[in-house]
Protein backbone atom coordinates (compact mmCIF):
# COMPACT_ATOMS: atom_id res chain seq x y z
CA UNK A 1 0.00 0.00 0.00
CA UNK A 2 1.28 3.44 -0.93
CA UNK A 3 0.23 6.75 0.57
CA UNK A 4 0.33 9.82 -1.64
CA UNK A 5 -0.20 13.19 -0.02
CA UNK A 6 -1.23 16.16 -2.17
CA UNK A 7 -0.76 19.60 -0.66
CA UNK A 8 -3.25 22.06 -2.09
CA UNK A 9 -6.58 21.60 -3.86
CA UNK A 10 -6.34 24.24 -6.56
CA UNK A 11 -6.10 23.37 -10.24
CA UNK A 12 -2.82 21.42 -9.91
CA UNK A 13 -3.59 19.68 -6.60
CA UNK A 14 -7.10 18.67 -7.58
CA UNK A 15 -6.04 17.41 -11.02
CA UNK A 16 -3.26 15.30 -9.45
CA UNK A 17 -5.52 13.88 -6.74
CA UNK A 18 -8.37 13.04 -9.13
CA UNK A 19 -6.11 11.28 -11.64
CA UNK A 20 -4.30 9.35 -8.89
CA UNK A 21 -7.61 8.19 -7.46
CA UNK A 22 -8.96 7.15 -10.84
CA UNK A 23 -5.88 5.19 -11.85
CA UNK A 24 -4.84 3.62 -8.53
CA UNK A 25 -6.70 0.83 -6.76
CA UNK A 26 -8.25 1.47 -3.33
CA UNK A 27 -5.35 -0.27 -1.55
CA UNK A 28 -3.40 2.93 -2.23
CA UNK A 29 -4.25 5.98 -0.18
CA UNK A 30 -4.68 9.47 -1.69
CA UNK A 31 -4.76 12.29 0.87
CA UNK A 32 -5.41 15.95 0.07
CA UNK A 33 -4.31 18.56 2.60
CA UNK A 34 -5.64 22.03 1.84
CA UNK A 35 -6.72 24.99 3.97
CA UNK A 36 -9.47 25.80 1.44
CA UNK A 37 -12.68 23.84 1.83
CA UNK A 38 -13.86 24.82 -1.65
CA UNK A 39 -12.58 24.18 -5.13
CA UNK A 40 -12.75 27.37 -7.20
CA UNK A 41 -12.45 27.74 -10.96
CA UNK A 42 -10.13 30.75 -10.76
CA UNK A 43 -10.35 31.83 -14.45
CA UNK A 44 -13.99 32.84 -13.87
CA UNK A 45 -13.18 35.12 -10.92
CA UNK A 46 -13.17 38.09 -13.29
CA UNK A 47 -16.88 37.52 -13.93
CA UNK A 48 -17.55 37.57 -10.20
CA UNK A 49 -15.62 40.85 -10.16
CA UNK A 50 -18.12 42.43 -12.59
CA UNK A 51 -21.19 40.96 -10.93
CA UNK A 52 -22.09 38.66 -13.84
CA UNK A 53 -21.46 35.51 -11.80
CA UNK A 54 -21.88 34.72 -8.12
CA UNK A 55 -19.16 32.96 -6.13
CA UNK A 56 -21.46 29.90 -5.94
CA UNK A 57 -21.29 29.64 -9.74
CA UNK A 58 -17.55 29.06 -9.72
CA UNK A 59 -16.97 26.90 -6.64
CA UNK A 60 -18.09 23.73 -4.91
CA UNK A 61 -17.22 22.15 -1.54
CA UNK A 62 -14.48 19.54 -1.70
CA UNK A 63 -15.29 17.40 1.34
CA UNK A 64 -18.47 15.70 -0.05
CA UNK A 65 -16.79 14.99 -3.41
CA UNK A 66 -13.66 13.56 -1.83
CA UNK A 67 -15.71 11.44 0.59
CA UNK A 68 -17.63 10.00 -2.37
CA UNK A 69 -14.47 9.35 -4.37
CA UNK A 70 -12.49 7.84 -1.47
CA UNK A 71 -9.95 10.63 -1.27
CA UNK A 72 -9.01 11.50 2.31
CA UNK A 73 -9.39 15.26 2.85
CA UNK A 74 -7.80 17.24 5.65
CA UNK A 75 -8.76 20.90 5.78
CA UNK A 76 -5.41 21.98 7.11
CA UNK A 77 -2.41 24.10 6.16
CA UNK A 78 1.12 22.77 5.81
CA UNK A 79 3.43 24.09 8.52
CA UNK A 80 6.77 22.38 7.84
CA UNK A 81 8.33 19.65 5.69
CA UNK A 82 10.16 16.64 7.20
CA UNK A 83 11.28 14.56 4.19
CA UNK A 84 13.40 12.21 6.37
CA UNK A 85 10.98 11.90 9.28
CA UNK A 86 12.38 12.60 12.73
CA UNK A 87 13.55 10.81 15.86
CA UNK A 88 10.00 9.56 16.61
CA UNK A 89 8.64 9.12 13.07
CA UNK A 90 10.67 7.09 10.60
CA UNK A 91 8.48 7.93 7.61
CA UNK A 92 8.70 11.31 5.86
CA UNK A 93 5.91 13.61 6.86
CA UNK A 94 4.33 17.04 6.61
CA UNK A 95 3.39 18.85 9.78
CA UNK A 96 -0.10 20.17 9.11
CA UNK A 97 -2.39 22.36 11.21
CA UNK A 98 -6.16 22.03 10.89
CA UNK A 99 -7.97 25.27 10.07
CA UNK A 100 -11.60 24.14 10.41
CA UNK A 101 -13.85 21.68 12.21
CA UNK A 102 -13.46 20.13 15.65
CA UNK A 103 -9.72 19.74 15.19
CA UNK A 104 -9.19 23.43 14.35
CA UNK A 105 -5.76 24.52 15.61
CA UNK A 106 -4.42 21.03 16.26
CA UNK A 107 -1.33 19.79 14.46
CA UNK A 108 -0.79 16.40 12.84
CA UNK A 109 2.16 14.62 11.28
CA UNK A 110 0.81 13.52 7.89
CA UNK A 111 3.17 10.78 6.69
CA UNK A 112 3.63 9.95 3.03
CA UNK A 113 5.39 7.73 0.52
CA UNK A 114 5.03 10.35 -2.20
CA UNK A 115 4.36 14.04 -1.79
CA UNK A 116 2.91 16.43 -4.36
CA UNK A 117 3.41 20.04 -3.36
CA UNK A 118 0.71 21.95 -5.23
CA UNK A 119 0.38 24.82 -2.80
CA UNK A 120 0.40 27.44 -5.54
CA UNK A 121 1.54 30.96 -4.73
CA UNK A 122 1.19 33.13 -1.70
CA UNK A 123 -0.58 36.33 -2.76
CA UNK A 124 2.15 38.64 -1.55
CA UNK A 125 0.17 41.85 -0.94
CA UNK A 126 2.64 42.87 1.80
CA UNK A 127 5.36 43.37 -0.83
CA UNK A 128 3.56 46.58 -1.90
CA UNK A 129 3.02 49.09 0.88
CA UNK A 130 -0.68 49.77 1.41
CA UNK A 131 -1.87 47.12 -1.07
CA UNK A 132 -4.51 44.93 0.53
CA UNK A 133 -7.80 43.76 -1.00
CA UNK A 134 -10.55 46.26 -0.22
CA UNK A 135 -8.18 48.80 1.32
CA UNK A 136 -7.29 52.20 -0.16
CA UNK A 137 -9.96 51.68 -2.86
CA UNK A 138 -7.71 48.97 -4.36
CA UNK A 139 -9.06 45.49 -5.01
CA UNK A 140 -8.05 42.07 -6.28
CA UNK A 141 -9.74 39.30 -8.28
CA UNK A 142 -7.28 36.59 -7.21
CA UNK A 143 -9.90 34.76 -5.13
CA UNK A 144 -13.69 34.67 -5.32
CA UNK A 145 -13.99 36.60 -2.04
CA UNK A 146 -11.66 39.32 -3.37
CA UNK A 147 -13.61 39.38 -6.64
CA UNK A 148 -16.92 39.70 -4.79
CA UNK A 149 -15.56 42.65 -2.78
CA UNK A 150 -14.28 44.22 -6.01
CA UNK A 151 -17.76 43.98 -7.55
CA UNK A 152 -19.44 45.58 -4.50
CA UNK A 153 -17.03 48.53 -4.78
CA UNK A 154 -17.41 48.78 -8.56
CA UNK A 155 -21.21 48.62 -8.31
CA UNK A 156 -21.10 51.54 -5.86
CA UNK A 157 -18.93 53.49 -8.25
CA UNK A 158 -21.30 52.80 -11.16
CA UNK A 159 -24.13 54.27 -9.05
CA UNK A 160 -22.05 57.40 -8.45
CA UNK A 161 -21.33 57.67 -12.18
CA UNK A 162 -25.04 57.45 -12.92
CA UNK A 163 -25.46 60.39 -10.55
CA UNK A 164 -22.97 62.35 -12.62
CA UNK A 165 -19.61 61.75 -10.95
CA UNK A 166 -16.58 61.57 -13.24
CA UNK A 167 -14.27 58.75 -12.12
CA UNK A 168 -10.88 57.21 -12.73
CA UNK A 169 -10.32 53.47 -12.85
CA UNK A 170 -6.87 51.89 -12.65
CA UNK A 171 -6.31 48.21 -13.42
CA UNK A 172 -3.10 46.22 -13.81
CA UNK A 173 -0.18 44.99 -11.74
CA UNK A 174 0.46 46.09 -8.17
CA UNK A 175 4.15 45.27 -7.96
CA UNK A 176 7.28 45.58 -10.12
CA UNK A 177 7.51 41.77 -10.38
CA UNK A 178 3.86 40.74 -10.53
CA UNK A 179 2.69 38.06 -12.91
CA UNK A 180 -0.82 37.13 -14.13
CA UNK A 181 -1.18 40.18 -16.39
CA UNK A 182 -3.73 38.09 -18.30
CA UNK A 183 -6.25 38.21 -15.44
CA UNK A 184 -5.89 41.99 -15.15
CA UNK A 185 -6.18 42.30 -18.95
CA UNK A 186 -9.45 40.35 -18.89
CA UNK A 187 -10.75 42.37 -15.99
CA UNK A 188 -10.06 45.78 -17.54
CA UNK A 189 -11.90 44.80 -20.74
CA UNK A 190 -14.83 43.36 -18.79
CA UNK A 191 -15.08 46.47 -16.62
CA UNK A 192 -14.99 48.66 -19.72
CA UNK A 193 -17.82 46.65 -21.31
CA UNK A 194 -19.89 46.74 -18.10
CA UNK A 195 -19.58 50.53 -17.98
CA UNK A 196 -20.91 50.66 -21.53
CA UNK A 197 -23.76 48.31 -20.59
CA UNK A 198 -24.66 50.63 -17.71
CA UNK A 199 -24.35 53.61 -20.10
CA UNK A 200 -21.71 55.36 -17.97
CA UNK A 201 -18.62 54.68 -20.09
CA UNK A 202 -18.17 58.41 -20.77
CA UNK A 203 -17.99 59.07 -17.03
CA UNK A 204 -14.82 57.03 -16.48
CA UNK A 205 -11.22 57.30 -17.55
CA UNK A 206 -9.81 53.78 -17.61
CA UNK A 207 -6.05 53.22 -17.32
CA UNK A 208 -3.94 50.08 -17.63
CA UNK A 209 -0.82 50.08 -15.44
CA UNK A 210 1.70 47.29 -15.84
CA UNK A 211 5.26 46.16 -15.22
CA UNK A 212 5.41 44.96 -18.85
CA UNK A 213 7.82 46.73 -21.18
CA UNK A 214 5.41 46.29 -24.10
CA UNK A 215 1.68 45.78 -24.14
CA UNK A 216 0.89 42.10 -24.71
CA UNK A 217 4.03 40.84 -22.99
CA UNK A 218 1.95 38.82 -20.48
CA UNK A 219 5.13 37.66 -18.72
CA UNK A 220 5.90 35.55 -21.80
CA UNK A 221 8.12 38.03 -23.66
CA UNK A 222 5.21 38.82 -25.98
CA UNK A 223 4.41 36.79 -29.05
CA UNK A 224 4.51 36.95 -32.80
CA UNK A 225 1.19 35.48 -33.80
CA UNK A 226 -1.03 34.68 -36.74
CA UNK A 227 -4.06 36.96 -36.79
CA UNK A 228 -6.35 35.94 -39.63
CA UNK A 229 -4.26 36.29 -42.77
CA UNK A 230 -1.88 38.71 -40.99
CA UNK A 231 1.11 38.14 -38.77
CA UNK A 232 1.35 40.61 -35.92
CA UNK A 233 2.97 41.07 -32.53
CA UNK A 234 0.85 40.61 -29.42
CA UNK A 235 1.86 44.21 -28.64
CA UNK A 236 0.07 45.43 -31.77
CA UNK A 237 -2.97 43.30 -31.04
CA UNK A 238 -3.39 44.61 -27.48
CA UNK A 239 -2.69 48.20 -28.60
CA UNK A 240 -5.42 47.82 -31.21
CA UNK A 241 -7.87 46.56 -28.57
CA UNK A 242 -7.02 49.29 -26.03
CA UNK A 243 -7.30 52.00 -28.71
CA UNK A 244 -10.66 50.56 -29.74
CA UNK A 245 -11.92 50.57 -26.14
CA UNK A 246 -10.46 53.99 -25.26
CA UNK A 247 -8.16 52.63 -22.57
CA UNK A 248 -4.91 54.50 -21.89
CA UNK A 249 -1.82 52.68 -20.67
CA UNK A 250 1.23 53.10 -18.44
CA UNK A 251 4.03 50.58 -19.02
CA UNK A 252 7.26 49.65 -17.26
CA UNK A 253 5.67 50.69 -13.99
CA UNK A 254 6.70 49.14 -10.69
CA UNK A 255 3.95 50.00 -8.22
CA UNK A 256 5.57 50.20 -4.78
CA UNK A 257 3.04 52.01 -2.62
CA UNK A 258 -0.72 52.42 -2.53
CA UNK A 259 -2.48 55.14 -0.55
CA UNK A 260 -6.17 56.01 -0.43
CA UNK A 261 -6.92 56.45 -4.14
CA UNK A 262 -3.29 56.93 -5.19
CA UNK A 263 -0.84 54.40 -6.65
CA UNK A 264 2.85 55.33 -6.46
CA UNK A 265 5.11 53.76 -9.06
CA UNK A 266 8.65 53.84 -10.39
CA UNK A 267 9.31 53.86 -14.13
CA UNK A 268 12.17 52.22 -16.01
CA UNK A 269 13.56 55.75 -16.48
CA UNK A 270 13.96 55.89 -12.72
CA UNK A 271 11.24 58.50 -12.21
CA UNK A 272 8.81 58.26 -9.33
CA UNK A 273 5.23 59.03 -10.35
CA UNK A 274 1.73 58.62 -9.04
CA UNK A 275 -1.69 57.87 -10.49
CA UNK A 276 -4.92 58.71 -8.74
CA UNK A 277 -8.04 56.57 -8.98
CA UNK A 278 -11.51 56.00 -7.58
CA UNK A 279 -11.37 52.24 -8.10
CA UNK A 280 -8.32 50.04 -8.69
CA UNK A 281 -7.71 46.35 -9.25
CA UNK A 282 -4.04 45.58 -8.87
CA UNK A 283 -2.57 42.06 -9.04
CA UNK A 284 -0.04 41.51 -6.23
CA UNK A 285 3.27 39.75 -6.64
CA UNK A 286 3.33 36.01 -6.03
CA UNK A 287 5.80 34.38 -3.66
CA UNK A 288 6.47 31.04 -2.05
CA UNK A 289 4.76 30.32 1.26
CA UNK A 290 7.96 30.51 3.31
CA UNK A 291 7.83 26.85 4.37
CA UNK A 292 10.69 25.44 6.43
CA UNK A 293 12.13 21.95 5.99
CA UNK A 294 14.03 19.83 8.52
CA UNK A 295 16.09 16.64 8.34
CA UNK A 296 15.67 13.69 10.71
CA UNK A 297 17.88 15.36 13.32
CA UNK A 298 15.92 18.61 13.21
CA UNK A 299 18.55 20.43 11.12
CA UNK A 300 17.30 23.12 8.75
CA UNK A 301 17.36 21.84 5.15
CA UNK A 302 15.03 24.47 3.66
CA UNK A 303 17.66 25.24 0.98
CA UNK A 304 17.39 21.65 -0.34
CA UNK A 305 13.67 22.03 -0.95
CA UNK A 306 12.95 25.67 -1.55
CA UNK A 307 14.23 28.61 -3.48
CA UNK A 308 11.19 30.76 -2.70
CA UNK A 309 9.08 28.16 -4.50
CA UNK A 310 10.03 24.46 -4.54
CA UNK A 311 13.25 23.34 -6.22
CA UNK A 312 12.66 20.86 -9.06
CA UNK A 313 14.62 19.47 -12.01
CA UNK A 314 15.36 22.90 -13.54
CA UNK A 315 18.75 24.46 -14.24
CA UNK A 316 18.98 27.22 -11.66
CA UNK A 317 22.49 28.39 -12.49
CA UNK A 318 22.39 32.17 -12.97
CA UNK A 319 22.90 33.26 -16.56
CA UNK A 320 22.15 36.31 -18.69
CA UNK A 321 18.99 36.55 -20.80
CA UNK A 322 20.94 35.84 -23.99
CA UNK A 323 21.96 32.43 -22.60
CA UNK A 324 18.54 31.31 -21.37
CA UNK A 325 17.34 28.15 -23.12
CA UNK A 326 14.24 25.98 -22.99
CA UNK A 327 16.45 23.24 -21.55
CA UNK A 328 16.64 25.26 -18.30
CA UNK A 329 12.96 24.53 -17.66
CA UNK A 330 11.90 21.47 -15.67
CA UNK A 331 10.49 18.35 -17.31
CA UNK A 332 9.30 16.12 -14.44
CA UNK A 333 8.92 18.56 -11.51
CA UNK A 334 10.78 16.17 -9.22
CA UNK A 335 12.86 17.55 -6.37
CA UNK A 336 16.53 16.62 -7.00
CA UNK A 337 17.23 15.89 -3.31
CA UNK A 338 14.14 13.81 -2.53
CA UNK A 339 12.90 11.64 -5.40
CA UNK A 340 9.47 11.16 -3.81
CA UNK A 341 8.65 14.90 -3.77
CA UNK A 342 7.18 16.75 -6.77
CA UNK A 343 5.95 20.30 -7.32
CA UNK A 344 3.67 20.91 -10.33
CA UNK A 345 1.73 24.09 -11.13
CA UNK A 346 2.77 27.39 -9.63
CA UNK A 347 4.51 25.69 -6.69
CA UNK A 348 7.76 25.00 -8.58
CA UNK A 349 10.57 27.54 -8.67
CA UNK A 350 11.10 28.70 -12.26
CA UNK A 351 14.75 28.78 -13.37
CA UNK A 352 14.35 32.40 -14.48
CA UNK A 353 11.82 34.65 -16.14
CA UNK A 354 10.53 34.38 -19.69
CA UNK A 355 10.30 38.11 -20.42
CA UNK A 356 13.56 39.97 -20.92
CA UNK A 357 14.62 41.27 -17.49
CA UNK A 358 14.78 45.04 -17.11
CA UNK A 359 15.97 47.29 -14.30
CA UNK A 360 15.05 50.89 -13.66
CA UNK A 361 17.81 53.51 -13.58
CA UNK A 362 17.63 53.15 -9.79
CA UNK A 363 18.35 49.42 -10.04
CA UNK A 364 14.82 48.19 -9.34
CA UNK A 365 13.81 45.03 -11.22
CA UNK A 366 10.68 45.89 -13.20
CA UNK A 367 9.87 42.70 -15.09
CA UNK A 368 6.86 40.41 -15.15
CA UNK A 369 7.42 37.06 -13.43
CA UNK A 370 6.71 33.98 -15.57
CA UNK A 371 3.11 32.71 -15.54
CA UNK A 372 2.42 29.03 -14.72
CA UNK A 373 -1.30 29.32 -14.06
CA UNK A 374 -4.25 27.45 -15.58
CA UNK A 375 -3.45 24.97 -18.26
CA UNK A 376 0.26 24.39 -17.52
CA UNK A 377 -0.76 23.73 -13.90
CA UNK A 378 -3.17 21.01 -14.96
CA UNK A 379 -0.81 19.42 -17.49
CA UNK A 380 2.17 19.32 -15.10
CA UNK A 381 -0.01 17.94 -12.28
CA UNK A 382 -1.29 15.11 -14.49
CA UNK A 383 2.18 14.12 -15.65
CA UNK A 384 3.43 14.12 -12.03
CA UNK A 385 0.51 11.83 -11.09
CA UNK A 386 1.33 9.53 -14.02
CA UNK A 387 5.01 9.35 -13.03
CA UNK A 388 4.13 8.53 -9.41
CA UNK A 389 1.78 5.78 -10.61
CA UNK A 390 4.66 4.48 -12.76
CA UNK A 391 7.01 4.53 -9.75
CA UNK A 392 4.48 2.66 -7.61
CA UNK A 393 3.97 -0.02 -10.23
CA UNK A 394 7.62 -0.27 -11.21
CA UNK A 395 10.35 0.96 -8.84
CA UNK A 396 12.73 1.28 -11.83
CA UNK A 397 10.33 3.62 -13.62
CA UNK A 398 12.29 6.24 -15.55
CA UNK A 399 9.83 9.16 -15.22
CA UNK A 400 9.05 9.10 -18.91
CA UNK A 401 6.07 11.44 -18.57
CA UNK A 402 7.61 14.81 -19.32
CA UNK A 403 6.20 18.24 -19.90
CA UNK A 404 8.55 21.16 -20.19
CA UNK A 405 6.95 24.55 -20.72
CA UNK A 406 9.42 24.76 -23.61
CA UNK A 407 7.58 21.89 -25.31
CA UNK A 408 3.98 22.56 -24.35
CA UNK A 409 1.22 24.62 -25.92
CA UNK A 410 -1.16 26.79 -23.97
CA UNK A 411 -4.43 28.52 -24.70
CA UNK A 412 -5.39 31.82 -23.13
CA UNK A 413 -9.05 32.46 -23.79
CA UNK A 414 -9.33 35.95 -22.39
CA UNK A 415 -12.77 37.33 -21.76
CA UNK A 416 -13.22 40.81 -23.18
CA UNK A 417 -16.83 41.26 -22.12
CA UNK A 418 -19.70 39.13 -20.84
CA UNK A 419 -22.90 38.40 -22.79
CA UNK A 420 -24.28 35.75 -25.14
CA UNK A 421 -24.74 38.25 -27.98
CA UNK A 422 -22.74 41.29 -26.83
CA UNK A 423 -19.81 39.44 -25.27
CA UNK A 424 -16.34 39.15 -26.67
CA UNK A 425 -13.21 37.13 -26.12
CA UNK A 426 -9.61 37.29 -27.19
CA UNK A 427 -8.41 33.79 -27.93
CA UNK A 428 -4.66 33.36 -27.98
CA UNK A 429 -2.78 30.11 -28.21
CA UNK A 430 0.96 29.88 -27.92
CA UNK A 431 3.38 27.09 -28.68
CA UNK A 432 5.67 26.66 -26.90
CA UNK A 433 4.95 28.66 -23.73
CA UNK A 434 8.67 29.32 -23.19
CA UNK A 435 10.07 30.52 -26.52
CA UNK A 436 12.53 28.18 -28.18
CA UNK A 437 14.78 30.52 -30.14
CA UNK A 438 16.87 27.69 -31.59
CA UNK A 439 13.91 25.80 -33.00
CA UNK A 440 11.97 28.84 -34.16
CA UNK A 441 14.64 31.53 -34.70
CA UNK A 442 12.64 33.68 -37.12
CA UNK A 443 9.33 33.81 -35.28
CA UNK A 444 10.44 34.96 -31.82
CA UNK A 445 10.84 31.40 -30.53
CA UNK A 446 7.33 30.22 -31.31
CA UNK A 447 5.61 28.24 -34.04
CA UNK A 448 3.32 30.38 -36.15
CA UNK A 449 -0.06 28.80 -36.77
CA UNK A 450 0.06 27.15 -33.36
CA UNK A 451 0.61 30.65 -31.98
CA UNK A 452 -2.38 32.63 -33.08
CA UNK A 453 -4.86 35.20 -31.89
CA UNK A 454 -8.42 36.06 -32.75
CA UNK A 455 -11.06 38.42 -31.36
CA UNK A 456 -14.81 38.03 -31.27
CA UNK A 457 -18.00 36.70 -29.77
CA UNK A 458 -16.85 33.08 -30.30
CA UNK A 459 -14.06 33.70 -27.77
CA UNK A 460 -16.62 34.54 -25.10
CA UNK A 461 -18.64 31.43 -25.87
CA UNK A 462 -15.47 29.35 -25.74
CA UNK A 463 -14.47 30.78 -22.35
CA UNK A 464 -17.99 30.10 -21.05
CA UNK A 465 -17.90 26.55 -22.47
CA UNK A 466 -14.55 25.96 -20.77
CA UNK A 467 -15.97 27.28 -17.49
CA UNK A 468 -18.72 24.65 -17.56
CA UNK A 469 -16.50 21.88 -18.94
CA UNK A 470 -13.78 22.32 -16.33
CA UNK A 471 -16.24 22.54 -13.44
CA UNK A 472 -17.84 19.32 -14.75
CA UNK A 473 -14.39 17.75 -14.88
CA UNK A 474 -13.43 19.01 -11.41
CA UNK A 475 -16.65 17.54 -9.98
CA UNK A 476 -15.48 14.20 -11.40
CA UNK A 477 -18.78 13.57 -13.16
CA UNK A 478 -19.09 10.65 -15.64
CA UNK A 479 -16.23 10.50 -18.15
CA UNK A 480 -14.64 13.65 -16.65
CA UNK A 481 -11.20 12.32 -17.54
CA UNK A 482 -11.95 12.59 -21.27
CA UNK A 483 -11.71 16.37 -20.99
CA UNK A 484 -8.05 17.32 -21.46
CA UNK A 485 -6.21 19.54 -19.01
Amino acid at each position, binding site marked *: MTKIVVLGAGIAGHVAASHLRRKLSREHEVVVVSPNGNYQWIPSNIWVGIGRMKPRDILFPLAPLYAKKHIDFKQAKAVSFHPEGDSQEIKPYILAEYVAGNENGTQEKVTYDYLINATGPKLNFEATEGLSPGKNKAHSVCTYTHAQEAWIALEGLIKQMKEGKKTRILIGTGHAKSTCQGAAFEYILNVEQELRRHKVRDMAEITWISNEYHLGDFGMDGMLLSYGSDIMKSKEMVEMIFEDRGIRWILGAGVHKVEDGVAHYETLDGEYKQESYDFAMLIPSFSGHGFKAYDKNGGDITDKLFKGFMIVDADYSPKPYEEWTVQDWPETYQNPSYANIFAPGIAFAPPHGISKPRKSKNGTDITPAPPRTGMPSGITAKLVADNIIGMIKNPNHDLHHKGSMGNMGAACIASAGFGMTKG*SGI*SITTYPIVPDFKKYPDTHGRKLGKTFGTIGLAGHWLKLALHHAFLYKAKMKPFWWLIPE
Partner: protein
Amino acid sequence: MTRRISKFKRFVMMNPIIQFFKFIYLSIKVLVIVAGGHGGTRNA
Protein backbone atom coordinates in the same frame (compact mmCIF):
# COMPACT_ATOMS: atom_id res chain seq x y z
CA MET B 1 0.63 53.86 -36.08
CA THR B 2 -1.72 51.67 -34.09
CA ARG B 3 -3.93 49.32 -36.07
CA ARG B 4 -7.66 49.91 -35.83
CA ILE B 5 -10.61 47.54 -35.96
CA SER B 6 -12.54 48.29 -39.14
CA LYS B 7 -16.35 48.36 -39.32
CA PHE B 8 -16.31 45.20 -41.41
CA LYS B 9 -14.06 43.37 -38.95
CA ARG B 10 -16.29 44.44 -36.07
CA PHE B 11 -19.31 43.07 -37.96
CA VAL B 12 -17.51 39.74 -38.42
CA MET B 13 -16.42 39.69 -34.76
CA MET B 14 -19.95 40.18 -33.44
CA ASN B 15 -22.11 38.36 -36.02
CA PRO B 16 -23.57 35.33 -34.20
CA ILE B 17 -23.85 33.16 -37.32
CA ILE B 18 -20.27 33.74 -38.43
CA GLN B 19 -19.11 33.41 -34.85
CA PHE B 20 -20.94 30.11 -34.40
CA PHE B 21 -18.77 28.55 -37.10
CA LYS B 22 -15.75 30.32 -35.64
CA PHE B 23 -16.60 28.78 -32.26
CA ILE B 24 -16.55 25.27 -33.76
CA TYR B 25 -13.29 26.01 -35.58
CA LEU B 26 -11.70 27.58 -32.51
CA SER B 27 -12.73 24.73 -30.22
CA ILE B 28 -11.13 22.17 -32.52
CA LYS B 29 -8.01 24.27 -33.12
CA VAL B 30 -7.46 24.93 -29.40
CA LEU B 31 -8.04 21.25 -28.62
CA VAL B 32 -5.51 20.18 -31.24
CA ILE B 33 -2.86 22.60 -29.96
CA VAL B 34 -3.45 21.94 -26.28
CA ALA B 35 -4.10 18.22 -26.37
CA GLY B 36 -1.56 17.77 -29.13
CA GLY B 37 1.00 16.54 -26.66
CA HIS B 38 3.92 17.82 -24.67
CA GLY B 39 7.27 16.46 -23.72
CA GLY B 40 10.79 17.18 -22.64
CA THR B 41 13.34 19.37 -24.33
CA ARG B 42 16.67 17.98 -23.15
CA ASN B 43 16.86 14.92 -25.40
CA ALA B 44 15.06 16.52 -28.34
